[in-house]
Every structure is written in C-alpha cells, then in structure tokens.
C-alpha cells in the first residue's frame, strides 16, 4: 500500500466513524441520562431524593387532636382549670404542628384541610369555653355576694346571661362539626370517640349555665333602658355592621362600652339625643355567630347576636427579577367581590417545598423579595384563611429563572498575574544562570568545547539499508551544521546552500522513494565527515 492509498483509507475510516457517531447522536440512550421518565415509570436515580414532609406523622396527629378535645372538655367540666390550661396548651401545640404539616404536605385542598379548618374552630371554641366557664364561675360566686344590691346584681345577671348565650352559640357550632369530624375520622381510621365525648361534655357545661340562669330567675333580663341593635344582622369580610342604640336615662357624652363576644371592643359617647352608634367593620374574626351587648356604667343592654358569613378569596402572584440572585414576589389578596384583604399573611411556596411569609398592606397588596440559587424555580402564593371569615386560595404557579451571581473576575486576574509573575521569574532566573555560567566557566573549558564542536562528527552506516543509511547521514550533517531537527531537507538546502546538492539528493531518497547507490552513500559520508563539499 503506498502513501496516498493509506491516507485515503485513513480518511475513509475517519469518515465512517464520524458518520456512525453522527447517526447515533440523535439516539443518545447509551451515553446520556436523557429520557429518564415515561408514563409507566421514572428512573429513581435521576429523581431528587426529597420527602414532601413527615407524612407518616399526619394521621397519628389527627388522632391525637381528636383525643385532646375529649381530655380538655373533661377537665373544663370538672373545673380543673390548671389541668385544662395545660391541656389547652398541648392542644394548641399539636394544632400548630398539624397546621405546619398540612401546609408542608400541601393537602389543604383535601378533607384533611377540612379537618384542619374544623380543628382551628374547635380550638377557638374550647379556648373560649375555658375562659367563659371560668368567668361564669366567678359570676356565680359574685351573684351570691351581691344579692341585695339590685344594681350590682343586675350587672352580674346581665353578664351571666351574655356568657350563657355565648356558650350556647359556641356549643351549637361545636356540635355542628361533629358530623364532619366523624366522617373524616372514619375515612382515616381515627378514633372519633373522644370528640363525641367532648360534645357531650360541652353540652353538660352549657346545660349547667342554663341551670344557673334558671336558678337566678329563669327569665330574660328586664327591659333595659340601654337598648342595642345590630343592622344588618349578618355580613361578610369587609362589610360594616352598625351597632347602635339609645340610653333613656343617659346624658350626652356619657360613655357606652360595647362588648363583642364578651370582649370590650369600643367605647363611644352618647349624643344629644341619648343615642350611640358604632360602625363595626368585619375583619379578622372567625365566621359564625357572635354576641354583642353594651354597658353604660352599671346599666346593661340586652344581648343580641349577629352572623358573619364566610367568603371566597383570590390570590395573585407576579414575579420580577430584582438582581441576579433575588426575585420580587408581588400580588394581591382580595375577596370575591374585589375587597382587599388587609394585613393578612400570604405564604409563598418555593419549588413545592419551602415556605416564606409576606403580609398584605391596607390595599391587600403584598411584596416579598426572595434570594434564590441559580436555576429555574416555581413559586406559588397561598392564603390559608386562618382566623378570617375567608376561605383559602392560592395563585397560579409562577416560574422564574434566576441567573445567579456571575463569576468574579478577581480569581482570573490573580491567576493571570501569577502566570505573568512566574514567567518573569523563570526568565530572569534563566538569564542569571547564563550570566553566571559565562562568568564562572574557565576559559580552557570554553576552548575545549569550541574545538569539540569543530571536530568532525563520528558516523557509521555499516550494515544499514541504503535508505536508512542516507537518513543517518542527513541527520548527522544537519546536526553538524547546527540546523534544528524540525527543518526539512529543502529547508536545510536553503539554510546551507554549500550542501544543497547533498540535501537535494536526500530529498529524492526520502520522499520520492529512490534508493541511493553505494557510491552515492560514500560521497555523502565524506561530505558529512567534512570532505569535498560538492561530492554529493
């Protein structure tokens, strides 16, 4: 096979390999990890190992929450308030754990979410029951103490009546949730008995309040000179209810205290006509029945109720890049009728996992800047509705690509400087060494070296094939003339024209495949050894 043919084969082989690789490039299954998920399965090695949360704890926690209701109501019924406080604290802690888990596992849209909502309301009901029962006991004691003092007695009876009504309302709402609790408990194989027992305990406590009310007269409070009304008697988040009335014996400017759910909510003054009014805006308050009454000094109004209805919400989310690493999340939280939900917590879920919280302002707008690692991220805003007469909502999922911080030029600059520095140092070191060699080398040695360089080179071509012998001679002559090894015969001829004949002949031997005769070799050897320059 001659030179050209071998090159052609090599080229053909290279083209073949490239063609084969090119054909397989579109089907990279053997050397890449692409296509790692199909409808039937996914490659676990390529799926991020990340648990959605402690799912195993969820159902036992639900069981424990149901169990806590029974324990708590029993201790309230037994008036063991110290234990009840402890039980309530434990119940609250478990509820917090459960709430966190529901959010982490993203199951608020399921019946577990319904359980969570009911549990929140149960927690509020039982906390109120504990407070009301304690206050009721105080009132029972006071009622005995102030018998004979009509004015004080009347005040105690009024407050007792308000409390009784409130407890009755609370029980009604609590008992209503029993069906849902039982249904969910059955689905998750939970023990609903403690919850059923808690309803019974709750009923007994409110029955006890009814009994006391009957014992203290068993009648509605006599018509009070301080009248009260709520208009309208129901509303939704953002609505304003007017709590107003008159005080027959009151003087203009006299203060009137308004209590909602037994908590002092506002103090207003009587106007010239003996009337008072208080616009109550429905904000962060649970949905359901609420009671209201007013006092003017020792005079109590009757107790009236109003209803807060729950409503739907919508949450929006817009993502914008602040810089290479930070994303601004903004959006609005509004009710179905477009009212802004103010000062409410909005949770931002990052990559279906991490949660961070923002708060809406008075316009229902929230904004949060979040630092994220480089890459694509998904974000979603969620409103959970806890404590509001509003249902939960979530925004559509938004996606953003974070570029991440660019590479700092400092390491490159340092590396470059180090490179230049090293080069400069080595160059300087070499220069100094050469200088010192020149200075230190004895003159004799220099002379000997020069002589050696001028001496004829030793070469032997005995026994070598003719073409190889020619190559040996060429290399020897090239070395003798101090021509670099990288130079071709033609270059050598140009550099040393005195030996152009030698190099021209060698070029033909090497590249044209000619074989030198013995005579030619001898002539070439003589020239190499310093003989007749033109012999070759």
């Amino acid at each position, binding site marked *: *096979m001659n*030179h050209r043919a*071998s*090159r052609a*084969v*090599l080229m053909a*082989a*290279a083209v*073949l*390999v490239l063609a*084969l*690789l090119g054909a*397989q490039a579109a*089907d990279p*299954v*053997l050397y890449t*990890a692409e*296509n*790692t*998920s*199909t*409808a*039937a*399965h*996914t*490659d*676990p*090695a*390529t*799926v*991020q*190992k*990340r*648990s*959605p*949360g402690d*799912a*195993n704890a*969820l*159902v036992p926690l639900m069981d424990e929450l149901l169990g806590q209701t029974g324990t708590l109501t029993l201790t309230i019924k037994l008036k063991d308030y110290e234990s009840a406080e402890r039980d309530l604290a434990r119940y609250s802690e478990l509820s917090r754990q459960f709430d966190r888990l529901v959010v982490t*596992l*993203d*199951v608020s*849209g*399921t*019946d*577990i979410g319904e359980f969570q909502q009911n549990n929140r309301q149960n927690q509020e009901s039982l906390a109120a029951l504990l407070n009301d029962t304690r206050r009721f006991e105080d009132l029972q004691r006071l009622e005995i103490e102030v018998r004979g003092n009509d004015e004080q007695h009347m005040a105690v009876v009024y407050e007792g009546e308000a409390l009784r009504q409130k407890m009755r309302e609370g029980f009604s709402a609590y008992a209503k949730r029993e069906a849902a609790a039982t249904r969910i408990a059955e*689905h*998750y*194989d939970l023990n609903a008995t403690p919850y059923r027992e808690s309803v019974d305990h709750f009923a007994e406590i409110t029955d006890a309040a009814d009994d006391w009310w009957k014992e203290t007269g068993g009648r509605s409070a006599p018509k009070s000179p301080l009248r009260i009304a709520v208009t309208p008697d129901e509303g939704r988040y953002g609505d304003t209810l007017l709590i107003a009335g008159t005080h027959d014996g009151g003087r203009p400017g006299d203060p009137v205290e308004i209590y909602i759910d037994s908590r002092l909510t506002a103090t207003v003054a009587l106007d010239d006509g003996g009337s008072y009014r208080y616009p109550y805006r429905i904000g962060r308050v649970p949905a359901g029945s609420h009671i209201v009454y007013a006092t003017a000094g020792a005079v109590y109004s009757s107790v009236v109720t109003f209803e807060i209805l729950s409503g739907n919400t919508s949450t929006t989310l817009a993502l914008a890049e602040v810089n290479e690493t930070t994303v601004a999340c903004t959006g609005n939280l509004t009710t179905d009728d477009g009212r802004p939900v103010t000062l409410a917590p909005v949770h931002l879920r990052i990559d*279906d996992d991490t949660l961070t919280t923002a708060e809406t302002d008075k316009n229902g707008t929230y904004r949060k800047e979040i630092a994220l690692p480089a890459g694509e991220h998904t974000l979603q805003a969620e409103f959970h509705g806890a404590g509001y007469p509003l249902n939960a909502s979530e925004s559509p999922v938004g996606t953003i690509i974070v570029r991440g911080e660019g590479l700092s030029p400092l390491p490159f600059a340092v590396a470059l400087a180090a490179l230049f520095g090293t080069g400069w140092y080595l160059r300087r070191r070499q220069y100094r060494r050469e200088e010192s060699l020149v200075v230190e080398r004895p003159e004799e040695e220099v002379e000997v070296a020069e002589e050696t360089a001028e001496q004829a080179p030793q070469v032997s071509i005995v026994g070598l094939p003719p073409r190889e012998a020619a190559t040996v001679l060429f290399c020897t002559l090239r070395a003798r003339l101090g021509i670099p090894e990288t130079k071709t015969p033609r270059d050598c001829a140009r550099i040393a024209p005195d030996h152009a004949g030698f190099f021209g002949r060698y070029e033909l031997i090497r590249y044209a495949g000619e074989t030198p005769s013995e005579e030619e070799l001898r002539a070439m050897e003589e020239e190499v050894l310093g003989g007749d320059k033109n012999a070759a």
Partner: protein
Amino acid sequence: MQREAWTVLLILLLAGGAVFAHVTTTTEEYSRYNTGWNGTSGFAGKEVRDLGDLDPGAPLLILAPDRPFTLDEVGYLRAFLDDGGRVIIADEEGAANDLLADLGSTMRVRPGNLASLDRDHADPGLFVARVVGNDTLFAGVGTIRVNRPAAVEGGVPLLETSILTWDDADGDGRITGSETFEAAVVCAREGNLTVLGDPSLFINAMLTENPQFIQNTWPVRIDGIHSRTGTANQIINTRLWIQETPLAVAALAALAVLPVAYRFGRKENE
C-alpha cells in the same frame, strides 16, 4: 506506513464496537435487550417461549403483557397453576385483565396514576407501599418502593399503599379537584396466582431499590412470548437466529478465518 495501518485498524475496531453495541440493544420499555434504565437486561430470569413446557418448581412471571393469550396457552397456565406452579402477572395497563378473567380469577388491574405522600423522592409516583399478610414473594420485606403503579382489585392483599395515596388523574403531582386520599392495593393473590400492579419493579433502574424482593422471585422464568421483555429489533432477531443456527455460526467463523488464512498464504509465497 505501518503506524498509519495500525491507526486505521484501531479506528475500524472502535467503530465496529460502537456499531455492535448500538445495533444489539434497544430502547424499548421492559425489553431484555434494553441495557438502559427502563430495560430488563439486568433482571436475572430465564425466558420461556413455550407455555406448554413449564417447570412447577419455578414461578412464571408475565411481565407487562401486550399480546393476547390463546385458549391453548390459557389451558397450559391453568394446568400449571393446578400443578402447584405459581404465576405472577405484573401489569399496570389492564392488558392482563382478559387473561385473569379466562383463568377464572376475580382480581383485576385498575389502570391509573397512583401517587402518594408516603415517599422520599420528589416524584409523587415513586413511593413506598407496605407489605401486608404473609407471602414468600415478600418474605423479609417490610416495604416496597413502587414506581407509578396501578391498583389491583380483588384477591388477598399483599402490598398496600398508605391512606395518603391518590389517583393523580390530572397528573399535576398534587391532590386537587375531585381527587381524594385512599389506600390502594398494588399486589394481591388468589391461590397460586399473584397480580402485581407495578411491572416497573423489574426494570434495571429499580432492581437495587427492592433487592430482597427481587431475590425472592428467584428462580423465576419470564414468559418471553407475551411479555414486553421480548421486544427486540430486526438486528437483534438476526443475531439470535445466528446464535441458534449452527450452520450460520460456522459460516460466520469461516468468514472471519478466511482473510487471515489468505494473508498468511501470501506471506509464505513472498
């Protein structure tokens, strides 16, 4: 010149190796000739191609069936079961339901997209199911990591998901809309007949996830006629034909030897 010849030879060998590796493998799901993550090349089990000649001592695995069974084949399977042989049908698309009915079983595969919160991977379809009841198939195994399984109805449950499982009908990976949490059975048995709603347990990528379970299946035989494990391509089929035909093997050997002999003959003449 010699150096160039060696280079050419090396390139040709490399190219030949690459070609061989590519043409003798496939990317088909569950294929025994798929060495990728979704193949079953790594699952140790001998293929059987004649259901009339089954050994009752070795369980028969019908893996992701996609071809119908003839009446004769159903009869062979029935006889095999009656003789004490064990049949494991791994299917998640419901293709085995006709066979189950023909075998008189009440078990059925209910195709779906089960997802669960009981998992330690980001993919909701890659989760853990618990072993319930006693069965040699799951001896020494507490949990099995399943990979997008289907539910199995009827029979005695052997493998059950947690209550925090749902059929992710919309495929969004979240429990939304009308989707509800419900425990599901992914493996059940009736006598010697076992139905597993997750054939993915036998793919290469899953073998290391449930090693004890895989070991318990031994010495399994795989139905190479109806299972998708038999999926090949023309080149693989040709290779198999050559392997199974002595004359073809001899012809190929001769083809390989001839150039060498020719070369040596030329050398001697020179």
